[in-house]
């Protein structure tokens, strides 16, 4: 019997594959998955471009990092120019009784801004080039705030609610219900088909995002990062993405069976997941994002300079251990799938009212 069920699950997955990957309704899921890749690609292109500009400026106004770092507050303009040469950009302006000036230098990677008041150096600004640790923190924010909470979330809404609801709209669900297959098996088969599709689409997106992000780093920087635990980060991000599909997938499969309009449950879950940070500990566990945040490979607590809102978004208040997080997410998924299977068992065909 179990062999037959497994075979039927496999057949349902095969039947659903084309619909989940190539349905016209699902085109926007690809756009959601592609959007962050494009953002990181654009970021890398801009960063590469800026680096080339800085290197060109440094070639025209050569100065070393050490020389620039040797400049101290209180020095006068002439001494600074004598030590590091002419800046690549110079701005001067006057106020009654005070003269301001700003000299900018670059060592090819970083930009230094020296601010003078009445010819004396008052302030030194330094805009460092992007580094992998710096970008990985930004990536963690975008991954958790945009990618998991919006892209994967709405992607799963699109794929999983359509597994049953889409066929009701197409008036073709009855063909399944008129075959010798348990409705629970059908629900599991459809869920797995949706899961395979979303995992392939969004995990590929995660991998491509990391690849796009790394484009502006040098080969040695990337090698050092990967050798120093970078592969673990990549695997974790891909794993968290798959876990997000697993959790949100079960919720939206159930939503597609329980509600005629999936927008209502999607909005409700979105609000619930968004409010997760404000919920008491017991209620936090009844959400997918809690477990995903606990599994995310972001350093917690994050960088001390991180803005408060960003900090709130990327860190779980009381993160669970990875084992607890995986177990919690699986339990939540199984419970929701059980509800969906029960609903599938009692499913009726009444297209005119659906």
């Amino acid at each position, binding site marked *: 019997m179990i062999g037959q069920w497994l075979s039927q699950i496999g057949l349902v997955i095969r039947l659903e594959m*084309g619909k989940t990957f190539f349905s016209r309704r699902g085109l926007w899921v690809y756009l959601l998955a592609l959007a962050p890749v494009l953002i990181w690609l654009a970021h890398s292109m801009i960063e590469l471009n800026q680096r080339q500009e800085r290197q060109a400026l440094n070639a025209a106004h050569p100065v070393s990092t050490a020389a620039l770092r040797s400049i101290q507050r209180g020095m006068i303009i002439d001494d600074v120019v004598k030590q590091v040469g002419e800046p690549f950009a110079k701005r001067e302006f006057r106020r009654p009784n005070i003269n301001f000036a700003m000299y900018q230098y670059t060592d090819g990677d970083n930009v230094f801004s020296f601010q003078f008041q009445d010819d004396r150096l008052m302030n030194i600004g330094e805009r460092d080039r992007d580094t992998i640790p710096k970008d990985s923190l930004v990536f963690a924010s975008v991954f958790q705030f945009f990618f998991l909470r919006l892209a994967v979330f709405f992607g799963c809404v699109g794929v999983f609610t359509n597994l049953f609801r889409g*066929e009701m709209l*197409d008036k*073709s669900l009855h063909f399944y219900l*008129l*075959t*010798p*297959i348990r409705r629970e098996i059908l629900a599991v088969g459809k869920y797995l088909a949706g899961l395979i599709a979303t995992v392939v689409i969004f995990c590929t997106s995660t991998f491509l995002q990391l690849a796009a992000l790394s484009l502006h780093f040098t080969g040695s920087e990337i090698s050092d990062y990967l050798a120093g635990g970078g592969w673990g980060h990549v695997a974790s991000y891909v794993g968290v993405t798959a876990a997000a599909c697993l959790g949100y997938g079960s919720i939206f499969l159930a939503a597609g069976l329980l509600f005629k309009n999936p927008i209502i449950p999607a909005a409700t879950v979105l609000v619930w997941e968004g409010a997760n940070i404000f919920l008491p500990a017991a209620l936090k566990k009844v959400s997918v994002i809690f477990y995903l945040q606990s599994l995310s490979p972001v350093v917690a607590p994050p960088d001390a300079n991180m803005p408060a809102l960003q900090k709130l978004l990327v860190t779980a208040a009381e993160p669970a251990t990875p084992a607890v997080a995986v177990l919690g997410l699986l339990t939540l998924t199984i419970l929701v799938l059980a509800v969906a299977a029960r609903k599938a068992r*009692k499913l009726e065909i*009444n297209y005119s009212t659906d």
Partner: protein
Amino acid sequence: MNDRIVLDNVSRFYGEVLGVNRVTLSVPPGITSLVGPNGSGKTTLMNLITGLVRPTRGSIQVLGISPSDPEKLFRVCAYATQFDSFPRGMTGFQFVYSYLRLSGMSHDDCQRTTAFAIGRVNLGEAAHRKIAGYSKGMRQRIKLAQAIAHDPRVLVLDEPLNGLDPLVRAETIALFREFAAQGRHVIVSSHILHEVDTISDQVILLSNGYVVAEGQIRGVREEMSEHPMQVIIRCTRANVLASRVFEQDHVVEVRLHADGGGLLVKTRDADRFYRALNHLALDGVGIESVAPADDNVNSLYEYLIGGEESTR
């Protein structure tokens, strides 16, 4: 009783709207037609039998299997619904093959069975074309092929003759007869009464969600005592026969045909009338033919449902 489809006091409501109410039936093998106007509950009854909807009250058994057990039911039962929609992008062959595979058949068996089923509905040449490009009649036939592919003992078909041209219609009816002759159930709904009359072994007449009559057409007709049976007689001396027939106390009306070559008799007791007619024939009245005039589904429909329809 395991060769029957049994509905026991089945009701189904859609909110406050009645689907069917207090339906009790025991349907034997053969071709059974569900007849009734739109909204009478024919499709609801078919959906109940196949588990696409569940009864609000009562119970259903199809050859002893509950419709809530699709795993068992659809090994013996098939249903071609009225929905003219199909999974996107499939060819006729893929459509039949894919759902047949779910029954557990091997790939090779499935290929063979699919080709055979499609051949039975004469759609072999179009089998590998997309269903989206099929005509209405072809779509009806591919649905039928999908329904008969696993050789079911119970075949439920909602308006199966819609959109079929006369030749295919005749072939399809022959297919139903072949199924019925093998002791299987063929349950069809139809609006085309003369076809129902031709193909059905028994009828179930529905109106406003209630079964108003069921059984063999003649048996149902005989039980309708408030509507006298009508008999058309063609004979040589129609006026003489008319006066002799009218002497019978169960004859309520006699009308002579305009050509003088026959008459229409309305009687409350068909058996006594036919016995009396035998005596009259022996007395030398030249009777050429005798035929019941309202012993068909059309008349049953008119008597049982037509009145309600017109008063609505």
